[in-house]
């Protein structure tokens, strides 16, 4: 099953490689990983999407907790939470395609953030499946590049990683 693990860790060089190394050394899957400093610059917040049996997920949580740089973590999967991912996508857009692309962008609540004679660059956020659906919807359009941030998440309500 797919799990979203949110980790608060020391913002030190090497902390990211400890986490990444743990996953490769113990043959755990990483679907996506995103990390950046928090409002407290001494801490980083990392979101990992992983898959595995209940036993493996339990081990992943325990092994992550064991890393000396990890301050705290939660597995958000079971709780109500918000997931978001950002995608930047550059598509071919010449005369005949421009209206169609613009219409799709509006339907998906995206924004066109860069325009040339032949391309649109689109920004769109949402859950992973929405981004997938958008890419799917563009099937008749030539896609030049796709950049996705990897998923980030936060718990709803007062609960959190504080």
């Amino acid at each position, binding site marked *: 099953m797919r799990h979203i693990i949110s980790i608060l*860790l*020391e913002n030190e*060089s*090497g902390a990211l*490689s*400890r986490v990444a*190394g743990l996953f490769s*050394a113990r043959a755990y899957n990483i679907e996506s990983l995103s990390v950046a400093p928090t409002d407290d610059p001494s801490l980083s917040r990392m979101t990992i999407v992983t898959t595995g049996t209940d*036993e493996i997920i*339990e*081990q992943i949580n*325990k*092994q992550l*907790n*064991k890393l*000396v*740089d*990890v*301050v705290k973590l939660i597995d958000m999967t079971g709780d109500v939470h918000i997931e978001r991912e950002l995608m930047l996508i550059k598509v071919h857009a010449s005369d005949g395609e421009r209206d169609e692309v613009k219409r799709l962008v509006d339907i998906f609540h995206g924004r066109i953030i860069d325009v040339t004679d032949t391309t649109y660059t689109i920004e769109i956020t949402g859950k992973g499946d929405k981004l997938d659906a958008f890419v799917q919807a563009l099937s008749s359009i030539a896609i030049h590049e796709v950049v996705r941030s990897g998923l980030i998440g936060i718990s709803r309500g007062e609960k959190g990683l504080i």
Partner: protein
Amino acid sequence: MELTGADIVIQSLKSEGVEYVFGYPGGAVLHIYDAFFKQDDVKHILVRHEQGATHAADGYARSTGKPGVVLVTSGPGATNAVTGVATAYMDSIPMIVITGQVPKSLIGNDAFQEVDSVGITRPIVKHNFLIKDVKDIASTFKKAFYVATTGRPGPVVIDIPKDITAEKHEFSYPAEIKMRSYNPTVKGHIGQIKRAAELILSAERPMIYTGGGVILGNASEQLTTFTRKLGYPITNTLMGLGAYPADDKQFVGMLGMHGTYEANMGMHQCDVLIAIGARFDDRVTGNLEKFCPDARIIHIDVDPASISKNVKVDIPIVGEVSQVLDDFNRVLGDMSKNDGSPALDKWWAQIDEWRSQDCLKYDRDSELIKPQYVIEQLHEVTKGDAFVTSDVGQHQMWAAQYYGFNKPRRWINSGGLGTMGFGLPAALGVQLAHPDAQVACITGEASFQMCLQELSTAKQYRLPVKILCLNNQYMGMVRQWQEFFYEKRYAMSYVEALPDFCALAESYGHVGIQIEKPSDVRGAIEEAFARKDDAVFLNFMTDKSENVYPMIPAGAGLNEMILV
């Protein structure tokens, strides 16, 4: 007072009460060596290879409970230390390994003798540090010792670029350290302990299974009280030997791949398993599908990640083993021990029947020297009170099976990683820590050659260790597997061109004794230990075809042993 970074390193070690540093100099650590030269508080032991330094520090740590300290240079110094760091990591040994690094400005430039020590050691340390500023040296050492020695212990590597060991800074060693990201659990959950106590007292076929965690956690005394109070059978893992006296009637021997018949059968048939400071290693459990099929399992461990890693447990208790057992002993208090219960009597009768198999019997009338006999004689001559280190292979299993350890921290071997070459340097570390004790290194002719350069270190520091080489001219354990599972195709397990070990030992200034007849075994061991000031190499020419029994083949259950 302002000190150089190098002096701060030494002063930090002194503040931690470090007696010995095992190391080898090189370019990146020359400032630190210069600082060593100017003081006498922390003694430096010069080894002949960095792997030897790590194993010596490891032996020191295992025999004392104090962290072992290693100092090596950058590049090859660090990579040579890697095997020893991994050895300590797998057995959870507290160790501080200081590696020199090229100056900060050269890091990443493929400089002479540069490797990414922090990157290379990351998967085999509890934690590691790269110090980037002279002002951080003291606090990093404080953190390193704290992390290495608390919770589940382990090695910590500190990588120090050369330039900052020359820079100056005010020295003050922190009295305390707090780390928001590291808070090991100490006390066990009392509710869980009470639940577990009820299950323990309801057991009809109980088994206590304890590992290295009891020794690392200095909980032998608590374990002995607990076990005697209950009157239950107890088995120890390879790493746990000595935590409970081997000569006690409740002790059923080691378990696992080369465990006793009674221990493994007892595990297989028990209804309540009490696992303490043990990690359900594959060499212990055999086939997990067949492991303890009828047992409800209680697991006490300081490391939450050890719990339900390989085997799902029913009652987990996270905490320091000594604290948890103290609580158990209090909770069990006057609760009548299950003594005299018909179920327990029946269980003991069953265990005694298994015992009567005498699974460790061997041919005592052989004209060849039986390796088991050598270990038994060592036990007698040393009155079971020696520190025994070993290398890895058949001799290691025989030492574990036949020496009979009655005290913790006496049996020193590489259990998790299985590092050949461990025995001799580990023995040197033990002897330094216990100058008046009897220290024996049980080895084989193959393992011994992996770190034999440390014979020179033994001479320099006059460390009178006794090396008992069970020389069967084969990599015995490899040969045994080839005999059993590869139709006797002995690929590369026969060592041709062995040296004259006695002459080799003598060339280093030690004593060599060659033993070829069973009748000479006892006398040779007595002579060796009578030579109080000499290191002695005893070359026992043993039966080449002897195998370690019992044996559980890979993939089999604990009840599927090959017996003699």
